[in-house]
C-alpha cells in the first residue's frame, strides 16, 4: 500500500516538475510548482514527518507560490517567452546532458547499502512516546538547535527589510 502510494506521488512529482520546466507560460509553470509542493508534502506524510508536511503546505504552497503568482501577474511576462534571443546555441544541449549525468551519478551512489553508521535517539516508538512527530521535532529544535532557531528570526527580518528597500521607488 505504502509502496503504491509512493509510486503514485513520485510519478505525479516527476510529471509535474517536467511540466514546470517545459511550460511556455510562467503561470502554468507556477501552477505545476504548486502540484509539486503538495506532492512533496504527501511524501513527507509517508515518511512520518507530519509537521513538515503541514509547514510545507503553509509556507510553500500558501506563501511562496502566492508571492510568485503575484509577481508574475504584476509584470506582464507573456510576450517575453516568445522572444527567443538565446545567444548560446549549445547551452540547452549541455545543460540537459550534464544534469542527466549528474542524476545518473547520484543514483549510482544511492544504490543499496547506503545507510550505515550509528542510529539516532528517535526510533518510531520514542517518537510515539513524545506524543507525535511535532513534539519530537520541537524537543530537538528548542534544545540542540535553539541558537540557529533564534537566528532564523534575524534572517526573516533581513528579508523583510530587504524586500521593502528593493521595491521602494526611490530612497531618500
Amino acid at each position, binding site marked *: 500500500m505504502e509502496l503504491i502510494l509512493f509510486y503514485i506521488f513520485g510519478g505525479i512529482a*516527476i510529471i509535474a516538475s517536467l511540466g*514546470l520546466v517545459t511550460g511556455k507560460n510562467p503561470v502554468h509553470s507556477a501552477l505545476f510548482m504548486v502540484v509539486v509542493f503538495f506532492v512533496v508534502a504527501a511524501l513527507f506524510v509517508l515518511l512520518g514527518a507530519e509537521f513538515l508536511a503541514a509547514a510545507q503546505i503553509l509556507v510553500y504552497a500558501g506563501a511562496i507560490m502566492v508571492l510568485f503568482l503575484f509577481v508574475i501577474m504584476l509584470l506582464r*511576462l507573456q510576450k517575453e517567452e516568445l522572444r527567443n534571443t538565446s545567444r548560446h546555441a549549445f547551452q540547452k544541449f549541455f*545543460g540537459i546532458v550534464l544534469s542527466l549525468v549528474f542524476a545518473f551519478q547520484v543514483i549510482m551512489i*544511492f544504490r543499496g547499502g547506503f545507510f550505515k*553508521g550509528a542510529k539516532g535517539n528517535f526510533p518510531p516508538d520514542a517518537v510515539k512516546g513524545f506524543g507525535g512527530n511535532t513534539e519530537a*521535532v520541537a524537543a530537538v*529544535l528548542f534544545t540542540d538547535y535553539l541558537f540557529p532557531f533564534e537566528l*532564523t528570526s534575524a534572517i526573516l527580518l533581513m528579508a523583510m527589510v530587504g524586500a521593502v528597500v*528593493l521595491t521602494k521607488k526611490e530612497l531618500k
Partner: protein
Amino acid sequence: MVPQEHYLVLSAILFAIGAIGVLVRRNAIVIFMCIELMLNAVNVSLVAFSKQMNSMDGQVFVFFIMTVAAAEAAIGLAIMVSLFRNKETLNVDEINLMKW
C-alpha cells in the same frame, strides 16, 4: 514499506529536473521556481535520511531550509520587480549589465 533508497532516487531525479530548468530556461522567474524545486528535492532526501537513521536532526534542517527559502523568495522577487522596472525584461540573456 518503501525502501528508503527509492526516496533518494526520486530526490535525485527531481533535483536533476530542477537543474535542467535552471540551465535551459531563459525566464528569470521560471529559473527561480526551478531553484525552489531543487530545494524541495533536497528536503525529500533529508527527511528520508532522518527517518532511516532514527534522528530528528534532518527534519530540523528541513525546517531551517524552508525558512531560508521563504526569505530567499521574498528577496528574489523584490529583485525581479526592481529589475523589470529598470530593464523592462526578465530574459536572463538581456540582463548582462555586469557581464564583461
